[in-house]
């Protein structure tokens, strides 16, 4: 576990980041998880039909390496676009959680984490 993340986790708390469509992100920001730090870096990314896959990839990479982020929420349909990154992602912190969006209900068959869990089960 990275020392930085645990330091933030023990101190004043680490952030929850969001990569989602406008509805999702607005909702979560309303709940109070949004933050923009001094360098104008935010912990959320609003994805619409104009957003490129590389933007999403960059956001994911930066969130997953930042010290002060402990959780990454990502809409499942967006997760599909960066499935290759998620399947290779093995760090326990920050945790990646796939959440459904308004138009795409939750599909457990596509969840990276559960897929890995299923393979573990069959290996037992």
């Amino acid at each position, binding site marked *: 576990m990275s020392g930085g993340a*645990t330091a933030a986790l023990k101190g004043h708390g680490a952030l*929850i980041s969001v990569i989602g469509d406008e509805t999702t992100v607005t909702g979560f920001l309303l709940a*109070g998880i*949004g933050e923009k730090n001094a360098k104008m870096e935010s912990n959320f990314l609003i994805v619409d039909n104009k957003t490129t896959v590389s933007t999403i990839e960059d956001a994911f990479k930066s969130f997953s390496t930042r010290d002060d982020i402990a959780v990454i929420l990502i809409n499942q349909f967006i997760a599909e676009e960066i499935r290759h990154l998620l399947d290779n992602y093995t760090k*326990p912190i920050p945790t990646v959680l796939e959440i459904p969006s308004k138009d795409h209900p939750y599909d457990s068959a596509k969840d990276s984490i559960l897929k890995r*869990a299923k393979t573990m089960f069959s290996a037992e």
Partner: protein
Amino acid sequence: MSGKDKLDIFPTRMALTVMKARLKGAQKGHSLLKKKADALTMRFRQILGKIVEIKELMGEVMKEAAFSLAEASFVAGDFSPMVVENAQKAQLRVRAGKDNVAGVVLPVFEHFVDGNNHFELAGLGRGGRQVKGCREKYTKAVELLIELASLQTSFLTLDEVIKMTNRRVNAIEHVIIPRIENTVAYINSELDERDREEFFRLKKIQAKKKKLNAEREEMAMARLAELGVSDFGELQDRERASAAAAVTGGGLNDDADDQDLLF
């Protein structure tokens, strides 16, 4: 031919006891590790079950939350840009506590509110109730998601630890213990062979000594027969001994021939 894999040590009895002690230690370690792996696997399955359960629940909760957002937008207008603009400092954060399972430290997230929510006063213009409802729904969703995140990190950490523990168990079972057993067998065989050699050597020496003694007695008997003593049994034992000694060259106590030394 390398044959059996064993440790290279000099085969002595001391080494044997040391090896036996090590074998015992390895076996104990193996059973302990196995127990640990079993306990962790049990906890692992538990967590997995919970994760699946909560993920389904989360699907429902998110749907509701999205609905309420749609409702609120309908009444209060599209407040998304304003929300995004005003997101400067996060009030809802996560803190990590530690949980200990069979010696493994697992992180546990708990949500932590740091200051007042900025959007307390949002939507006072129109649709304040809906906005407030929406906010509460999303806050609940976040709490649920934090719990889920907790479970997920524990899950992933446990997975790593279980794999490592199983690796160690297998290593002890298939490499370390056979190696020590082979070493013990080797030492035993070497010691046995040494004993056999000793035994054989002793036997050989005994046989030789016996032969030598038999030869001497024969010679003594022959000489005495020459000297005219027919019945050996008449002689005193001492005389017999000195006669035999005289024939064979004498011992230290034989002073029959010694002359007195006069200074």
